[in-house]
């Protein structure tokens, strides 16, 4: 349970991290909070020849509104993201998802970007990013590019990030309407464990109570988090009555490809996805109808 030997460098800027990556490429790993990478190294599932510590890079820790998106630095600690009241008002699903992540000791260390690039298919932050259609700013020496969430998550523990790229920022769409509500729910064996299935939703309603916009996502039931776009679209123009929601999520299995394991069969995962999807849509509707925008689940 001790990590294999590695060479180590501390990067003090994004540019320095990128040039170290350019030099060591596929042999190197960026070390952020280490809450996923270090256990994998302890179990020798990961043996990077180089670790590049990006924890001390101040440029990676910004959080600001920029027009229609909220920009978060990839190096922000999960605990700081969770406590950011302005962010919670602008993109409430992030805090609602983080409620389910790990424990205080891991959130004090774990970063936003680290969880996203680790890309566990049942992790909460990737699910929120996919559901809302966040985008990812990746930088390498001499260039940068933006990748949308539907292209970013490619397979379990695999993202579009190339070995010489560093995730710098995540851009979260802000729904500007007055009546926006969201909710996150999941089933896990114990609090803080990875979800067996997780679901989240965000809806916007007009003054007549009609749904004008909806997003629904399911985690833990496919190789990557899934945005159930057809179901979300089918809710547009409805009053989001319980019966409408139940009918809409009936077919949710069509967009999922769950596996079976010791915790749950594929069939049970689809059942859970249906139950949780209906639950988060109802809760999102209730939160949207509330007088003030509710930032809690």
């Amino acid at each position, binding site marked *: 349970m001790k990590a294999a*030997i590695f060479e180590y460098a501390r990067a003090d800027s994004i540019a320095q991290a990128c040039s170290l990556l350019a030099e060591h490429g596929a042999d190197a790993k960026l070390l952020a909070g280490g809450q996923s990478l270090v*256990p994998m190294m302890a179990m020798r599932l990961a043996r990077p020849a180089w670790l590049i510590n990006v*924890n001390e890079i101040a440029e990676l820790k910004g959080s600001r509104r920029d027009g229609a998106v909220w920009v978060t630095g990839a190096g922000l600690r999960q605990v700081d993201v969770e406590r950011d009241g302005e962010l919670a008002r602008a993109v409430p699903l992030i805090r609602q998802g983080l409620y389910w992540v790990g424990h*205080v000791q891991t959130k004090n260390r774990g970063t936003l970007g680290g969880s996203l690039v680790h890309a566990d298919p049942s992790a909460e932050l990737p699910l929120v990013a996919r559901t809302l259609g966040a985008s990812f700013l990746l930088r390498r020496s001499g260039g940068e590019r933006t990748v949308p969430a539907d292209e970013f998550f490619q397979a379990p523990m695999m993202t579009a990030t190339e070995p010489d790229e560093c995730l710098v920022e995540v851009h979260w769409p802000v729904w500007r309407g007055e009546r926006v509500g969201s909710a996150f729910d999941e089933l896990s064996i114990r609090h803080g464990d990875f979800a067996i299935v997780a679901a989240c939703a965000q809806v916007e309603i007009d003054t007549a109570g009609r749904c004008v916009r909806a997003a629904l996502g399911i985690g833990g039931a496919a190789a990557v988090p899934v945005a159930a776009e057809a179901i979300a679209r089918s809710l547009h123009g409805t009053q989001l009555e319980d019966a409408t929601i139940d009918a809409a999520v009936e077919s949710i299995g069509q967009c999922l490809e769950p596996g079976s394991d010791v915790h749950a069969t594929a069939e049970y995962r689809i059942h859970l996805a249906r139950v949780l999807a209906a639950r988060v849509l109802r809760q999102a509707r209730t939160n949207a109808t509330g007088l003030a925008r509710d930032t809690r689940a």
Partner: protein
Amino acid sequence: MNEPISSVCITVNGVEHRCEVPTRLSLVDFLRETVRLTGTHVGCEHGICGACSVILDGDPVRSCLMFAVQADGHSITTVEGLANADGSMSVLQDSFCETHGLQCGYCTPGMLVATHSLLKTNPNPTAGEIRDAISGNLCRCTGYQQIVEAVQLAARRVAAGNGNR
């Protein structure tokens, strides 16, 4: 490949330690084997049990999930640093004894670090909040109930001003 070595300067319970360590040395092994403070326990070594919890720059973290090099320039408080200045037990530690909040004691340093941190930000936690704060710490002996009672007792004692009974 030779063992890569790094030099670090880490403050532990107020004392600065400058030394050369293997780069892959975990923070918990640094504390136990280099600094020789064995109060911090090491259980699973991969972030599950919480026995290795320490306070890093004021916040509880798992010391098996950090390499000592990452703590370079930072401050650590271990369970040894939670006792009163004269070496006697803190109110929280004493409350664990009072309520039988430990049996074998393996989880205790992690429990103390977690609940000490809780009480610092929330001096009067509910039972639910206490359970949430120790949700990342496993105890195979107590069934957790007496640990929750210990924290409640400590909170009451501090509030009543009779910290050092």
